[in-house]
């Protein structure tokens, strides 16, 4: 590894991270199966909600399609964070710091694995969604943008998973954050548009919750077509989360290496 460029180092770690995920069928199955199961239960369980006056879609299946994309990104970040924490727990991270490999390569490689998983999830969900009858109003280009935004969301939340792993160095602590991620998803406009949420306190939380804007950006591509405002807010929030979480992960990495 001596003398190898940062890019080579990142590629090596990214390959390791991707292969580790690919070799755990249980992780892959739960990363695909659970979000699709929840999506399906929501879509057919809440189909009647389309008859609420002012509901923006004719089919709840279309409306709910952002759900598996965001949920999978959040869950993927827990998986990646837990893998990084396992590297710290097992001493791999410490051994790595004795080699010429730069610690930042470990973080970037892990995030590259998150992006790869996000890409696979985005494409697989899109294919299953289309088979189930989801109609993407923005057409083929919209599907590409949908997958791109999903990957950015995965990267942003992957950074949050990295912060948790680097700060705690504990797999258990990272996995304990799972319920919190669930809270963040459900306390958003994931199930109903914000203007149709009756409870004022819930609408307020959904309005300040960035996940609402990620969901609305993704959803606009499916049910509206090209909505510049929703897309700007969606991409803006995704980039904001990426910048903040990577800055936090970088700072956590420096603290971890200094120990």
């Amino acid at each position, binding site marked *: 590894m001596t003398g190898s460029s940062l890019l080579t180092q990142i590629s090596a770690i990214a390959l390791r991270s991707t292969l580790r995920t690919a070799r755990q069928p249980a992780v892959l199955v739960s990363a695909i199966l659970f979000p699709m199961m929840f999506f399906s*239960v929501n879509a057919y369980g809440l189909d009647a909600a389309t008859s609420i006056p002012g509901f923006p879609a004719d089919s709840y299946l279309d409306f709910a399609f952002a759900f598996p994309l965001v949920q999978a990104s959040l869950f993927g970040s827990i998986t990646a964070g837990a893998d990084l924490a396992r590297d710290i727990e097992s001493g791999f991270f410490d051994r790595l710091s004795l080699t010429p490999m730069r610690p930042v390569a470990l973080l970037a490689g892990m995030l590259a694995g998150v992006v790869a998983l996000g890409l696979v999830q985005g494409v697989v969900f899109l294919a299953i969604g289309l088979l189930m009858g989801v109609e993407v109003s923005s057409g083929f280009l919209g599907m590409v943008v949908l997958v791109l935004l999903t990957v950015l969301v995965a990267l942003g939340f992957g950074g949050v998973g990295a912060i948790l792993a680097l700060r705690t160095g504990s797999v258990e602590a990272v996995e304990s954050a799972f319920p919190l991620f669930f809270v963040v998803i459900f306390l958003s406009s994931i199930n109903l548009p914000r203007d149709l949420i009756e409870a004022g306190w819930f609408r307020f939380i959904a309005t300040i919750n960035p996940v609402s804007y990620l969901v609305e950006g993704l959803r606009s591509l499916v049910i509206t077509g090209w909505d510049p405002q929703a897309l700007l807010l969606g991409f803006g929030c995704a980039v904001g989360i990426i910048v903040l979480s990577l800055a936090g992960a970088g700072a956590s990495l420096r603290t971890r290496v200094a120990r």
Partner: protein
Amino acid sequence: MGGFFAVAGAVAWRQIYKYFTNPAFLAPAFFPIFFFVAFAGGLTRVGDVPGFDYSGGYIAFQYVWALLQAVAMGGAFTGFSIAGDFENGFASRLLLAASNRSGIVLGYTLASLARVTVTGVLVTALALLVGMPISGGFDFFGLIGLAVLVNLAATLFGAGVAMMLRTQQAGPVIRTPIFLVLFLAPVFVPLDLLSGWLETIARYNPFTTILEAARGYLVGEPTSTLPAYAIALALVLVFALWALYGLRRAERAG
């Protein structure tokens, strides 16, 4: 027979002591409370859709599901405790010491009931706090009876799996079927408003009958109460046999 109850009492007392000296015993209440807040708070307008005919309103509609989820997950968590006891060696010593081993199953079941009494009260207190009406009066006890049976069935199912596998990795095997049964039911809207494959599965899911009867009790309009109790009792009986079978397997494994 004295040994049976003595063992059950000792196991139950140990479990209850463990629960109430560790705040983690409230963990099974987290998801039901959270789902209740998320669904009852965020989906209130769903109560206005044509055909939504539940007279108690949307908060009450969601409360019943959250309560049954809390008691079912309480049963699942007891299964996790049993698996943990096998993994750390306590259960092996217990099997050696117990004069009547069937009492062990009863002990864990009683402890599970004590645990979900607290989590059930928490869910109910929250629902009352956000304005849920209990218009059914004494019929509410019918709902409590069904909740107790659901907890017994889930605990016995979890106990059977935990004793068969004797490792904490049994967690997903216990949790996943319970989660599926809970969600493949009329969670958000009444059965007639479901659509697609979910409607078909929910119609054949025995939990749907229990859920609908429990919702009827809450508003004083009991429906399908006899089938609901019959199904719940049958589940308790089947899973009691399953738990005893698991116990025998654990005995043979030493």
